[in-house]
């Protein structure tokens, strides 16, 4: 059981050959009013639910290779690679918790957000019917499951972030964020006397270490952390989640913050929590930190924890209308 499993993702050509989009399908970006995103977003979900981004796979393999061969940590990371290969090959969900489905839509002037929302919701309903997504939207108090992944009030699920930009392309990113890792996210208010954390980068560091220790294996470690310094209780968490979309291994634009991220990742990997909390040297795959502005009286550190199965993907309609997927 202890041989190194090699990741064997199918080629992009094979993935494209299984697409739900008709051959050569293109959007007409000169007529945004008539644009229908439904099929293209279904295809995005088909990919994100079954296929991990290459940077995440590379980080998992690197973690596996750092563990002692044959150890529980090594075998667990090896099983994760096996699972990645299997889900991709048979196009089944990587994880039964296909998560809360969160969309970021960036678009030029002229696209109707109301229409886009309705189309993307229809894509989520169809993806649920096809067992690419588990119905993950329940009434809070009764626990009653809508069965379709739709929140009838259009408030919570799926979640949308719209932004108009001055480019001709339409870009849709999606994240499937599991409940287990969402539950171990945390928000701190500095100063924090119990932690001995003040309103400085040292204080921020203490919050992150504390959150990872409290999470243990419960967020399906090794995790990826998005950390927003500042903002308010809402915008901080929003930003922290968005930071998980950043590719692992890409540098933070701020060199000081980049060094902070790298040093802290190395420190977290000495905690001994390891994959799934079994012990080991692979506790965090990466940390992405960004500083925001804040109210003078408030200093929040908002931490979103993403499980190792970091399902994210982006669909870009190029200026000529061709859909392009990064997975």
């Amino acid at each position, binding site marked *: 059981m202890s041989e190194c499993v090699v990741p064997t993702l199918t080629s992009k050509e094979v993935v494209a050959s299984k697409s739900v989009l008709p051959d050569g399908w293109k959007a007409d970006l000169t007529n945004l009013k008539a644009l229908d995103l439904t099929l293209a977003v279904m295809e995005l979900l088909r990919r994100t639910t079954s296929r991990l981004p290459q940077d995440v796979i590379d980080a998992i393999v690197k973690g596996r290779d750092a563990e002692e061969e044959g150890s529980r940590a090594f075998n667990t990371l090896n*099983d*994760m690679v096996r*699972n990645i290969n299997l889900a991709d090959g048979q196009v089944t969900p*990587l994880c039964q918790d296909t998560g809360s489905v969160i969309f970021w839509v960036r678009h030029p002037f002229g696209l109707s957000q109301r229409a886009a929302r309705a189309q993307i919701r229809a894509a989520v309903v169809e993806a649920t019917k096809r067992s690419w997504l588990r119905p993950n939207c329940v009434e809070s108090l009764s626990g009653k499951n809508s069965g379709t992944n739709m929140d009838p009030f259009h408030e919570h699920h799926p979640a949308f972030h719209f932004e108009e930009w001055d480019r001709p392309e339409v870009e849709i990113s999606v994240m499937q964020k599991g409940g287990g890792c969402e539950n171990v996210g945390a928000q701190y208010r500095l100063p924090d006397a119990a932690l001995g954390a003040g309103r400085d980068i040292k204080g921020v560091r203490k919050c992150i270490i504390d959150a990872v220790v409290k999470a243990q294996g419960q967020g399906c470690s090794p995790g990826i952390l998005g950390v927003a310094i500042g903002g308010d209780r809402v915008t901080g968490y929003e930003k922290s989640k968005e930071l998980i979309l950043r590719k692992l291994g890409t540098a933070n634009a701020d060199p000081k913050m980049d060094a902070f991220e790298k040093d802290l990742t190395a420190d977290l990997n000495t905690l001994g929590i390891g994959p799934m909390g*079994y012990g080991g040297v692979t506790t965090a795959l990466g940390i992405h930190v960004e500083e925001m502005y804040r109210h003078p009286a408030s200093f929040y550190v908002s931490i979103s924890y993403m499980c190792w199965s970091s399902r994210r993907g982006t669909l870009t309609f190029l200026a000529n209308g061709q859909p392009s997927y990064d997975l």
Partner: protein
Amino acid sequence: MIRLTTPITEDQVRQLKVGDEVLLNGRVVLSRDIGHKFMKEQKPEWLKPILENMVIYHCGPVVKKNADGSWSFVAAGPTTSIREEPYQADVIETYKVRGVIGKGGMGKKTSEGLQKTGAVYLHATGGAGSLLAERVKRVVDVKMLEEFGSPEAFWIIEVEDFPLVVTMDSHGGSLHEIVAQQSQERAKALMA
């Protein structure tokens, strides 16, 4: 590697120790949040023959209904177990459950329940949904599907060589407690 087939006797369970790797075979019953609250508060009699000497799996699967009306599991990894901490010990005792499969481990109350009744906590790899669904050979039955919805229903399945690690045994041992303590000490040093 230890091969176990459900139903399991108390004797078999008492021999298991933290760190043992187990391949589980036979019937397993899925239950998670709503199911555990229901079992503790309502103690339904009809579940007794289904759960006695059996194993509960904390899992909300992705399922698929086949053309002939039968069900298949598409993805079926474990969910976080600690949410069942307020209920688990009672459920184990009431229904004489011999094993609980999940991820992330459980707390003191559950550990006491495992010791008292004679049961173990078995850890599965979280997120390995496709890999673990492959080891589900058959969906035997499902209870409370309408009432609870598919992620929360009592699915009764048959598994073959389901790969698990004993992380809490019936003698008070817990790998999770050890890792938590060691990481807390290391965190103190990192924060100093």
